[in-house]
Every structure is written in structure tokens, then in C-alpha cells.
């Protein structure tokens, strides 16, 4: 029998384990995902945090977590996960704590850390098959410092360090593929606006040993410039346009958990975000819009046989 219990929406636990009243922005897509993830992981977790927006969840002497938390640095959260995992294993082996005192070790890092500075530490942790879950909340820029472009910023997006009419000139790094190339136990992309897909994947990761990535695209009202009540809508459009493929890697295979058969034009996703406004105003930039559409079509071309 499979260990997975979540099949339908009604199977998803709704504990609200993560307390409200944090310093996150209204409509934060990362917090939206984290609320749901935490309900599934439960309180016997220690979150190892890398510098980023979520660092402000735990501000002395308060925390929204029922379990534990350790702040580390921008580059080395996976190394802290190693230290904690090893120490818990040692303590259990030496019978200095009971097996019931054990905890799930969870890295919580943004794209700035995960796609860039923290990649060496993450790569090494996966290579050692460290038993941990790595949550990357990806808001496609250095959000906490005011949305400068990062390695996760998509093509043509305007950020506070790519303000020209053509926006960010490079393309988003494929961190999922980088993780998959390491052959981890598991890797999945999720989004807060698809609770069932999210819940199934987080539950799967929770029940596996080894290195597991949960990569959450995190619509960011302040960084992407949209109204805070549109987070869910933008999340859904990211999936429906094919811009954010929902997929998982396990046993050497990548499987798409949701294939948008009739993909909406990327324009629908782009035009409601301030960071892409320059593609439509004052003049429509058909060339750039086509470039973005082309990238998405090219991606799905591999999978639509």
C-alpha cells in the first residue's frame, strides 16, 4: 500500500500550523505555499533558513512555527542541514536521545540563495544523499532587497537592476534540471495556487529518505508589481500558460503532473504584471513577447509527443 494518503482536496490537512501575523507582504506567494507545506510536514521539523524574505518569519522573540528554526547565512543552509541531520543521527545512535525526538530537517531558501550563492552547498548535500527537504521559494529576484535580478529572473522581466525597455536580457536558470542531474531522491515544482498538486508532492517528499527539492514559484506582489489579491490568479496563469511546468523527478524520470493541453498565450500571464508592462506600453514589443512564447513552446515541444 502506498504511504501517500492525499488523493483529493478533502484529504489535505488544514491545521493552520503556521501562525499568522508575520512580517511577510500581503499576498506573498511564498507564504501561501509555506502555509500549505507546513500543514503537511508538521511540527516535528527544524527549518534551516538561508538569508532572504523568509528570514523575517522568526523575529526575536517570536516565531510563527510550532517546531524549530535556525537561521544560518545566504550560502550555507544545506550545510547546516547536514550538521543537524548528522548530530540527530549521532545522538540516536549513541542513545543520548530517543528516536521519537527525531525531526525532519528542512531548508528554507529563496531563489537568490538556491540558484546562486547556496548552490555549492546544496550540490554537495545532494551528492552525499543527505536526508532533508529543500524548499526553494522562487520569486525570481532578490526580493528582500527590492527585486534586483537573480539567476532565477525570467527573460525580459523588469527588475530594479534591469530597468531598460527590454528588461532582463538573460534567461531563467533551470535549477530543477540541475537538481535532477544530481539524481536526488526527489525533486518537484509546485505552486501555492494548486493545493492538491502541492500536497501530493510534499507528502511524497516527507515519506522519502534522501535529498528532496520542493521548488515553489512564488508570485511576489511587491517585486512583480501586481495587486496582492491576484497571487492565486497569477499562479494559475503561470501553470496554464505553460510558463511554470508542474513536474517531479523520481527514480531517474521526470514526469509532468499537470500538462496544460490547451496552453493559454503567455501574454495573459505577462500583461497583468507590472514587471512586464514595458512589453505592452507605451508600445507593444511583439519581438520580446514572441521570444518568451517561443521558449515556452520549445519546452513543451519536448513533452507533447
Amino acid at each position, binding site marked *: 500500500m502506498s504511504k501517500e494518503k492525499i488523493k483529493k482536496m478533502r484529504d489535505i490537512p488544514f491545521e493552520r500550523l503556521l501562525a499568522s501575523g508575520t512580517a511577510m507582504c500581503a499576498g506573498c506567494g511564498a507564504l501561501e505555499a509555506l502555509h500549505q507545506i507546513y500543514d503537511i510536514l508538521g511540527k516535528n521539523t527544524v527549518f534551516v533558513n538561508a538569508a532572504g524574505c523568509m528570514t523575517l518569519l522568526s*523575529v526575536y522573540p517570536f516565531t510563527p*512555527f510550532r517546531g524549530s528554526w535556525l537561521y544560518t547565512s545566504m550560502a550555507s543552509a544545506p*550545510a547546516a542541514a*547536514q*550538521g543537524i541531520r548528522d*548530530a540527530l543521527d549521532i545522538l540516536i545512535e549513541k542513545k543520548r*536521545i530517543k528516536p*521519537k525526538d527525531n525531526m525532519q530537517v528542512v531548508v528554507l531558501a529563496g531563489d537568490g540563495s538556491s540558484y546562486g550563492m547556496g548552490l555549492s552547498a546544496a550540490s554537495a548535500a545532494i551528492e552525499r544523499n543527505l536526508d532533508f527537504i529543500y524548499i526553494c521559494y522562487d520569486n525570481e529576484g532578490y526580493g528582500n532587497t527590492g527585486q534586483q535580478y537573480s539567476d532565477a529572473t525570467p527573460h525580459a522581466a523588469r527588475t530594479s537592476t534591469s530597468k531598460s525597455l527590454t528588461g532582463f536580457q538573460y534567461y531563467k536558470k533551470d535549477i530543477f534540471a540541475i537538481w535532477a542531474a544530481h539524481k536526488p531522491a526527489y525533486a518537484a515544482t509546485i505552486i501555492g495556487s494548486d493545493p492538491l498538486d502541492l500536497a501530493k508532492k510534499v507528502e511524497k517528499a516527507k515519506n522519502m529518505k534522501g535529498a528532496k527539492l520542493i521548488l515553489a514559484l512564488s508570485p511576489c506582489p511587491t517585486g512583480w508589481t501586481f495587486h496582492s489579491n491576484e497571487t492565486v490568479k497569477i499562479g494559475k496563469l503561470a501553470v496554464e500558460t505553460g510558463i511554470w511546468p508542474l513536474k517531479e523527478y523520481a527514480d531517474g524520470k521526470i514526469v509532468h503532473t499537470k500538462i496544460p493541453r490547451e496552453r493559454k498565450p503567455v501574454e495573459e500571464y505577462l500583461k497583468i504584471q507590472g514587471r512586464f508592462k514595458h512589453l505592452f506600453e507605451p508600445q507593444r514589443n511583439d519581438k520580446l513577447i514572441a521570444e518568451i512564447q517561443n521558449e515556452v513552446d520549445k519546452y513543451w515541444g519536448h513533452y507533447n509527443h
Partner: protein
Amino acid sequence: MKRKLLTGNAAAAWGARLANVDYVPAFPITPQTEIIETLAGWFDEGALKGRFVTLDSEHSMVTAAASAAVTGVRVFSATSSQGLLYASEMLYAVSGYRVPWVLVNVSRGLSSPVTLEADHNDIFALRDSGFLQLHASTCQEALDMVLMAYQIAEDVRVRLPVIVNIDGFYLSFTREPVEIPDENKAREFIGEFDAHNISFRANVPLSHASAVLQGSIYSYFRYEHHLAAIQAISVFNESAEKFEKMFNRSYALIESYMADGADYVFIMIGSFATKAKEAVDMLREAGSLTGLLRLRMFRPFPEEEMKKLLKGKKAAAVIDQNLAPGKGGVIYTETAAALCNEKEAPFLISYIGGLGGRDITAEEFYEIEKEMRKAAETKKPPMARLLFSEAELEAVRKLQGIAGVEKKNEQRKN
């Protein structure tokens, strides 16, 4: 107890073994690597129980070390030079975790130019990191200081990580006879690891190293850290007393060699102090009242002890094996600060020497002694000196000549 010929590296590793460490996160770097190789071997053969893991960098290594200490195990690690600096962000960060563990630094000069040989710019770059610092000058001390470091770090009044410093090559690769304490006695000396109120356990939530948003909360924690570090002075003395009773070797915060009743003293740190001892012996034979003060603890800085030991001396020469460009020697600066309100303070003269493993010769010590005497007589201490001989300059010029450096400079000008 057994007596063995050990390198400084092996002695430091023995210290960790006798402390019965649970966890060693590691990363290789010359001249430290022998320490982690030795420990890895002991974990493999079962002499040590727990885990040895190689991380992707010293930055990660220090993060893993401190996180394991927060979880509640006894941790040891080692690094050197560029590795220490690569880890420095985390060294500053994790000293604020307020959990005990021990890191050995094998001193090596910093780039650029890149070198493998010893000086103290690496360890002094971390002087304000919040780690305590103990400095060994012999292989025996390398072992003993690691043991004492655990006791000091784990003391409830301190609860701070400690760096034990040994010099690259001069200690790391030099074999000396070392008395290895009996395992059971060493364990009795250190005791079982006690995590106190910091550990990660299911159903015992702990938020550690959380952000603060106010200067007053930040200041509160930083002041606590500082006050705990200062406690390490008396804790060191208590630990040394216990150590002497159990192992019959006596360690003071500042080693005083023939300094009692001396008019002139050398002030040093690390293995080169043994060269100064030899010079002191010769000077004494020639009738000069010269001695040596060697700092064993550098953080916290044993200020009161230093004032007491320097009281009434005519002149003191601080020989720094480090250089803060644009300022000078670190130990000189700190010693001068300690003395600034003292009435019977000696003239203080600054010397920089021994950079990148450069020798400090007996003749240089004799020359320094002459300058101390002259300073006391004329009441005019000389300017800071950079030790470098004409022969050395000639040798450098010769090398440059072989490489055609001068010629290239000429060509560039034309």
C-alpha cells in the same frame, strides 16, 4: 599516559580524540590536512564513534559544525589561512549561536602573494569574530590546549567556541615528544557533553539565531557575548589548575619566561617564542636582564595580567608575526591599549617579523634587546621596525635579476 613523537597536527588530532568528539566536519587545506586525515582514520577504525564528513568548503564546514553543536553534540574541526577567511562570515555568525565547539587553525600567511608558510595574519583577521583564541607554542601545548579549550568552551559561564592556533610547518609538521594523557583521565577532565538549554528535539521547539529588529535587542546579545568572553579569563585559570593537578603541566594565560625581575621583555605569540627563549638564555648569560612574555590566550585579551607582568619594566619589544598594512602589529596595538593608563608602563617598541615563515634570527633578538636598552636610556623608543636584512634584499634582487624583472620594468617605461 604515554610519550610519543608527534607532529603538531597529530597532537591536535589527539586532543580531539581524547575529548571524545562526536562529529568532525572537514575540508582539506595545507598545512592542516594531516589533522582531518588522522581523525578520519580514527572514525574509520572505530577509535572514535560518531561521524566524519567532508563539506564543500570551509564556509559550509563551519556552518555544519556549529549547527551540529546547536543540536547537541561535541564538535571538532580544523582549518588554515584562506580556509579560515573563507569561513569568516560563518565564524562571526556562529559564535553568536553561543554553543561550544573547538576549531584548530594552523596558521599560514594570507594571499597575496600566496604562500604555505606561517604567520598570524589569518588568525588575527578573526580576532573580533567572537571566538575565543588560545595559541600553542609546542606540540605538547597543541594537544593540551585542545583539551582545555573544550572545558573552557563548555563552561556554563562561557558557552562560546574556541580556536586553538598552532603555527604551520614550525608546529604542524615538526615532531616533538608529546605526552598523551590517559584516555579515561582526559574524559574525566572534560566530562560528558552537556547541551544545556540549546538543542533541537521533536516537541521541544527552539528558534535559534532569529533576526532582531532593534538596536537594543541586538546590543543585549552582543554585550552578553562580550561579558561571557571575559569570563573565560577566570575559567581558563580554573581549568589550568585542574589540568595541572591531573596532568602535571602548568599553563598560565601569559607564559612568563625569565620575565620576573627582568628590565626588558620580548612579547610574542606562537612557536617563534621558543626562538626568543633561546635568545633570552644567551642574553642572560651575557648579563642582560631580559625575559619573555608569551600570550597563550589572545581572546579574551588578558589585559590585567599583561599590565601586572609589565609593571616596572623599562622597555618591552612586541614582535608581531602579522602586519596590518597602514597600521602595524596587532599585538603591539592591543598591548599599547592595555598600558595606556598605567603609570609604570615600559616603553613599547613594535617589530614586525616572521611573515610567511621568515625566520627571526638570534642576532635580531640581540639587536632588539639593544634597542630596548637604548629606548630606556634615551627615553625615546624607535619607530616601528620591519625585520628584513640586507642579505635578504640582495637575494630578492638576485631572483628578480634572473627573472628579468628590472628589464621588463625598463621596457614598460619605454
